[in-house]
């Protein structure tokens, strides 16, 4: 039963491979060409790539290569043909974009993104097309064989913001998340509009101007909805398919990554086959399936998928830009018409600005967090055109479009202008705009610490007041998803370990088990672990020496290395103290000052990511944040436990808990914090802490907690046992 889906897919993919095989020779030549380029780009000095974006450098390399090839062959043998581009190069990039998309951010800004993508692109297309037509009528372009419809078609293909270019340029420039997701999301979703407009105007041009009436226009509008929603639907269906597949592949994990890529590509091809929007399909496939496949698949498969995705996307992007450069070195293509080209450049730039500002003004009335002026400027400036426009223009039929070469040349120039000029100036622009507003003075220590405190404070208050995320629709969707989708699409074991806190707890235990083993091996055997009296002294940890005194009963129940008691949460490896610095401080005040600043810089916990660039072509997020989160979590739990423990130790323990139980008249399961506690120093009181601790560890499972509290002396060890059972 597990094999039938596999077989079907294998047969389909073999069909694809035969298609691919015919192009294999061609592609292999190009790949070998590009493999020459990639290392050179990578080895380039980082300071160079921070000034000039990689894409610009790649285009220049393309020019050089094109020149070499042209010089050798006297004609351009390598050009970026639409088939190669749309079928072999673009899907990987888009799948990568969808798979790594920050979903929460994307969907919470979906309204704005859709407005920009649909209305913005239509506006751009209409204004550019009509503007050029008006200027042609006015005679600014001289004598060219072109009409209104062709102008509109050209407008529609040049209007679309390109995802590849956006990623390439914005990767170096670290703008804030919301701004990035706006531009990026727009660039992905506008494909629906572009495809429709392109096909509609193409059909109109074929029909000729006379045949167009209201019916045709209405048909065009309907086709937009069909194409866009149909494409998304195809993507979602494939996402469901992938998730189900990964659910069933427990025994054949080695082929999981392969499935992801094959099915992703299939979604693209299927949508293309049905004349729907292929980009939308593959984007939604990636977006919808990421959560489930990451949960279902083995960790190694997940790593494989992530890395291969990045490799493929990087490779495709490189090839695309190099080809864009090579394609320029082809005199057969070049037609120069000053008016047309300059006016196009002017119009796309100006109308983009007007469009963005207009739409943002309307949107800000409805948005919860309005977009600022600076963000709008960056968004307008970041409307880069790229290879998609070139691919579309290369698909035009020469017989219908007499001026195809002119359009191709213009498109190339537009692409170079946006990618290179706007790409290079983007970073200075962003820095300049920001610097104008902030004062540039060295912060004092107090300010540094306080700034960070403020960050954490704001995050905490936001969480408490439920500002972000407390949304009726989002809650409903969340509930629906928890109940039905996860049950359907995720493996049972994956579902269980989905609780985030749980995960961290599990990882902490794993880490401590590892450290036990390491320490044991260092001492020759693991026998030392079983010796309770030594266990709390051998681990020479900070903050921990005091704990070993207050928690003897925890150690008492230590049953060996596989039983990891709660106290292990509190232990971790601290590197040995470097006292040299201290001696230096005594002598030099400046170095002390510097060291203090440096320490703060390095070691202050960062607030939750608010202005950090999430999407990057080349950097997979490393786990530094998770380490920080684990540390903070450990600390919080420790301090809560500490206050619980010391409160318990402070007053006669047995009596206290007994009386609390007797006081309870209502048959409540969860211990109530209604008791009058004298714990002034501890914000929670002992019982509060304990239930707090466990509520947060276990989610909302009070019945487990109450059984524990009832017998306090072995309380902690029982907790361990029960938690242990839950971990299995």
């Amino acid at each position, binding site marked *: 039963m597990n094999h039938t889906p596999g077989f079907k897919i294998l047969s389909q993919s073999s069909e694809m491979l035969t298609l691919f095989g015919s192009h294999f020779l061609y592609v292999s030549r190009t790949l070998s060409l590009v493999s020459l380029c990639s290392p050179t780009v990578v080895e380039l000095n980082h300071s160079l790539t921070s000034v000039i974006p990689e894409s610009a450098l790649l285009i220049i390399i393309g020019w050089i290569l094109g020149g070499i090839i042209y010089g050798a062959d006297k004609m351009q043998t390598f050009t970026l043909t639409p088939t190669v581009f749309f079928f072999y190069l673009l899907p990987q990039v888009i799948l990568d974009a969808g798979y790594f998309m920050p979903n929460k951010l994307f969907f919470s800004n979906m309204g704005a993104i859709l407005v920009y993508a649909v209305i913005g692109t239509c506006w751009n297309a209409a204004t550019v097309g009509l503007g050029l037509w008006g200027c042609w009528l006015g005679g600014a372009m001289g004598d060219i064989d072109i009409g209104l419809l062709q102008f509109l078609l050209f407008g529609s293909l040049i209007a679309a913001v390109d995802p590849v270019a956006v990623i390439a340029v914005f990767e170096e420039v670290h703008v804030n998340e919301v701004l990035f997701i706006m531009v990026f999301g727009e660039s992905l979703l506008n494909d629906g509009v572009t495809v429709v407009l392109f096909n509609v105007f193409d059909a109109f041009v074929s029909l000729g101007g006379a045949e167009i009436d209201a019916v045709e226009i209405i048909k065009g509008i309907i086709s937009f909805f069909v194409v866009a929603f149909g494409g998304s639907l195809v993507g979602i269906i494939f996402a469901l398919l992938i998730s189900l597949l990964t659910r069933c592949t427990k025994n054949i994990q080695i082929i999981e990554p392969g499935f992801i890529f094959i099915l992703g590509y299939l979604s693209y091809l299927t949508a293309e086959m049905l004349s729907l929007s292929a980009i939308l399909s593959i984007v939604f496939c990636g977006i919808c399936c990421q959560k489930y496949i990451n949960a279902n698949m083995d960790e190694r498969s997940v790593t494989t998928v992530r890395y291969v995705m990045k490799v493929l996307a990087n490779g495709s992007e490189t090839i695309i830009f190099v080809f864009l450069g090579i394609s320029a070195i082809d005199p057969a293509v070049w037609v120069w018409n000053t008016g047309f080209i300059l006016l196009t450049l002017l119009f796309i730039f100006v109308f983009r600005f007007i469009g963005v500002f207009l739409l943002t003004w309307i949107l800000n009335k409805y948005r919860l967090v309005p977009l600022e002026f600076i963000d709008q400027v960056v968004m307008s400036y970041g409307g880069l055109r790229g290879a998609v426009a070139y691919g579309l223009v290369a698909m035009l039929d020469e017989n219908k479009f007499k001026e195809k070469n002119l359009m191709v040349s213009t498109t190339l120039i537009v692409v170079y202008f946006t990618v290179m000029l706007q790409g290079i100036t983007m970073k200075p622009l962003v820095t300049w705009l920001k610097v104008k507003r902030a004062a540039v003075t060295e912060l004092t*220590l107090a300010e540094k610490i306080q700034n960070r405190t403020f960050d954490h404070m704001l995050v905490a208050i936001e969480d408490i*007041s439920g500002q972000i995320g407390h949304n009726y629709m989002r809650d409903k969707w969340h509930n629906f998803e928890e109940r039905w989708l996860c049950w359907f699409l995720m493996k049972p074991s994956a579902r269980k370990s989905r609780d985030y806190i749980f995960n961290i707890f599990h990882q902490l235990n794993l880490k401590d088990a590892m450290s036990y083993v390491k320490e044991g091996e260092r001492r020759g055997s693991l026998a030392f672990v079983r010796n309770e009296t030594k266990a709390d002294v051998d681990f020479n940890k900070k903050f921990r020496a005091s704990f070993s005194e207050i928690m003897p009963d925890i150690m008492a129940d230590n049953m060996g290395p596989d039983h990891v008691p709660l106290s292990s949460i509190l232990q971790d490896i601290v590197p040995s103290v470097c006292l040299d610095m201290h001696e230096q401080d005594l002598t030099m005040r400046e170095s002390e000052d510097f060291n203090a600043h440096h320490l703060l810089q390095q070691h202050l*916990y960062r607030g939750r990511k608010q202005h950090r660039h999430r999407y990057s072509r080349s950097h997979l997020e490393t786990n530094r944040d998770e380490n920080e989160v684990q540390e903070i979590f450990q600390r919080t739990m420790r301090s809560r436990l500490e206050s619980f423990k010391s409160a318990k130790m402070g007053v006669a323990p047995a009596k206290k808990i007994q009386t609390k139980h007797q006081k309870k008249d209502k048959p409540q399961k969860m211990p109530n914090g209604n008791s009058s506690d004298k714990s002034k120093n501890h914000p929670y009181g002992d019982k509060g802490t304990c239930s707090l601790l466990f509520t947060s560890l276990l989610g909302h499972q009070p019945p487990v907690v109450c059984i524990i509290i009832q017998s306090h002396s072995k309380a902690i060890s029982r907790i361990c046992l029960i938690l242990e059972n839950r971990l299995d």
Partner: protein
Amino acid sequence: MGSTNSTLSKIPNVEELMQETGFTPAHIVRLYDRFEALDKEKTGHLRPQDFGAINRLAMNPIGDRIIGAFFSPGQETVDFHSFVRILAHFRPADKKRPKDPSMPEPVNSRTSKLKFAFQLYDQDKDGKISRAELLQVLRSMLEMQVTEEQLESIADRTIQEADLDKDDAISFEEFRKSLEKVNIDHKMSIRFLR
């Protein structure tokens, strides 16, 4: 989301609350919904456990302190009014408010915000941030790799920078002075959603 008026009528002294904190009715309703969502046992009060159920707070280095700030000394529970009052500190300052010296300081003015921040440090409420209290805060905000000696040197430097009357502690005035260049309104406000 239901009628605002019906929810508002459930809350006693709503007018006074709105006047004092400056929240609009829509804000109050939002916050009331949140309060009820946190108050799982429907007692009308929040206890520390209810705050503890917010998972993300456990991941915040000063999460526990913030929770503590909601509870006045000696009190075990927070009712809706206190909840809103504390949150009102984080409202962006009203730009167009006329400076009326006879009216009490509004809850979200710069001074009030700074007072709130000060109280986070000053746990024993003696009006000064002592070296020990500063050390406690620093310890919770720095990674575990920082040694005790390093922490102490940072604390010493900080007090040195801010302490003007040389009493080895930071009073509220000194605290305020050390932060005069910081845009407190920007750093300590969140946008309350409608």
